[in-house]
């Protein structure tokens, strides 16, 4: 009943549909890249810095590579990296948040202070520093970016999860389980966390937008995904000096960053509305 109402709500909600539409569009773009786009690495020095045309929909870059192909393949990079970051930080954050909220006492104090400490550090600055350190220590790799963002990103999940669990653990079904003699971990994993997932999914959706922005920012600063792998932020960085002579180098990657962030934000906000309404209907 709840699920059906929720599903109906998603498709009736304009924000949700629009957001989902954009995300599906970009995801399809990434999935179908081998079919709908050419080789993103193929240089052609006799066709460098050509403006958008029928042959090159989004023009070509300094090495004569097709910007359209790089954008399409870039969708893969961006979405995959963002998704990996979100999944890891969600798992880590939720688990720590749930443990803190459920067990309380000294466990909560320790985890709570760790969360506070991370919240006090400016996120992007910390990311930049971490990527720099990882690069020196482990060489260049996409995992540097993933790890660096995860280190700061899990905190928001932990904080939300903790507060949800704090209220859930006083609810009747948890008390019943306890009375029936269920163990703490069983209750936590089977009953508490699944019941907290709704708001977490909303948070994850909204968070995906932030993560994409962070990856792109790091890419723009030359710290993220390294050339020649196509990635939108890094493409803007490479094109920034040509903004007056070849604006298509920055316009299209910028447009797609904005679109994908918008997509996730719309979906997140829509989900929030739908959840509120579903709850009201059911009650």
């Amino acid at each position: 009943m709840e699920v059906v109402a929720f599903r109906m709500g998603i498709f009736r909600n304009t924000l949700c549909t629009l957001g989902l539409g954009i995300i599906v569009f970009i995801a399809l773009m990434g999935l179908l890249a081998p079919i709908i786009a050419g080789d993103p690495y193929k240089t052609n020095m006799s066709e460098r810095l050509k403006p958008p045309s029928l042959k090159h929909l989004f023009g070509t870059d300094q090495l004569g590579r097709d910007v359209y192909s790089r954008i399409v393949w870039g969708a893969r990079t961006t979405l995959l990296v963002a998704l990996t970051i979100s999944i890891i930080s969600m798992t880590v954050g939720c688990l720590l948040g749930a443990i803190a909220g459920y067990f309380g006492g000294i466990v909560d104090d320790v985890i709570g202070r760790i969360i506070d400490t991370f919240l006090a550090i400016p996120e992007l600055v910390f990311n930049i520093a971490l990527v720099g350190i990882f690069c020196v220590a482990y060489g260049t790799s996409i995992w540097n970016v993933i790890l660096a963002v995860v280190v700061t990103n899990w905190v928001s999940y932990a904080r939300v999860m903790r507060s949800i669990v704090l209220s859930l653990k006083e609810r009747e079904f948890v008390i019943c389980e306890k009375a029936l003699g269920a163990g703490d971990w069983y209750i936590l994993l089977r009953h508490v966390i699944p019941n907290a997932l709704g708001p977490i999914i909303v948070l994850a959706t909204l968070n995906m937008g932030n993560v994409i922005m962070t990856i792109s920012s790091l890419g723009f600063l030359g710290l993220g995904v390294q050339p020649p792998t196509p990635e939108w932020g890094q493409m803007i960085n490479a094109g920034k000096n040509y903004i007056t002579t070849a604006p298509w180098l920055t316009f299209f990657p910028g447009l797609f960053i904005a679109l994908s962030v918008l997509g996730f934000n719309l979906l997140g906000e829509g989900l929030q509305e739908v959840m509120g309404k579903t709850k009201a209907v059911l009650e």
Partner: protein
Amino acid sequence: MAKRWEIEKDGKIITFELNKGIKFSDGTELKADAVKFTVEWLAKNHPLGQETFESAEVVDDYTVSIKYKEEGFFNLAKMAEFHMSIMSPKSVKPEGDPKGNFVWPIGSGCFKAVDYKEEQYAIYEPNPYWFERFGLKPKFRRFVVKFIKDEDTRVMALKGGQVDAISDFIHGGSDYTPRNQLSVLESMGFKVFKRNIPLTWIIAFNYKKEPFNDVKLRKAVDLAINRDDVIKIFDKQVLPAKTLFIEDAPGIKEAKAQGVIYEFKPDEAKRIVEENGYKGLSVDMIVDKNQSDQILVAQLIQQKLRDIGINVKLEILETGAYRQRRDAGEYDMRLYYIGGTDRRFYLRMFWRFYPGQKWSAYVSDRTGELCKKILKEFDEKKRKQYLVEFYKAIHDEHGVVPLYFDIMTAVTAKNVVADYYHVFHYPNGIPFGEPLFYYVGVRA
């Protein structure tokens, strides 16, 4: 500065006779004692001085005899290096003490330093004694040099009108106006001034290690590079390197006449790769992140080598990490530069091709021996012959892969009234090797 010089003991001792009437910017005359002081101070305080000088003796007011650690022509070549600029004994405290602390630059060039802060700025005024000596009147009152490390920030400073001109800090590999920006700047109305210098960008191999210890593989890489494509990255603002250095460099024309030319033969490259079982080989190339030019060149090279069946993994690293990897020899290929401004040609030859140097590009028994001979030989004709043989050897062994000839540049704002002559000559008409502010002797 020197009127004539005499070489003794194969160059272990060189006696310089100085021109009369040269004055430091504080009005005192530049005499033999200042040269002796500078030599002794450098021998104590500067790495180049330490490895070069033994001692100096004043013969008379205008004659000074310098004793070098090694023999050879290289001693003379090194005297042209800017580190060797003669400074007044008053530049250090206690005055004239070879162990003294450097306190203020007092040189004999056309500029006089009036203020500077290391890595921030330097302010110059005309040195009246220099202008007086040549019967000229200075056309400027003040000259301010700002130190802006990042290449993009420097270009932005010019675009934003904070500076009237930007120029290269032409050590070769660092801190220059990105060549890929020159055409963009030109199209925006800025004036771009260029001068050819014997400075060449190359692919340097880790040739002592597998797989590039194999000359055949180095040859394949060499033949796979289309240098005419490389220069398109820079809108042809630079020239393709089909010889090791520009034609004006000593011995290049002669070597070229003997067929020492770097060619683009992708089919042959492909054949070599296949015949020697290198197809599908993976190698890495380290690139300094702060050089946008090199990031572009590296990507093009990656593509060209992919075309012949070699996969290149690009590792674009922070400058510190890049240097660490370079010095530890943890790489297969990297982009590097050889040569420099005319006056640095032989010094860089020493650093890049002499056996046992830290920042070398390529040394084999044959090239190492030739390099030693070149730096020893005072006779210009013989030196040229050795150079031709050296170019041949490097070419035969495919020790390095020349890519493009770099240039010296200055870019000025639209409203700056300047022409090529002003930019690359001293006010007295003598052409100089690099941007003006280098010649005031400020170690800022």
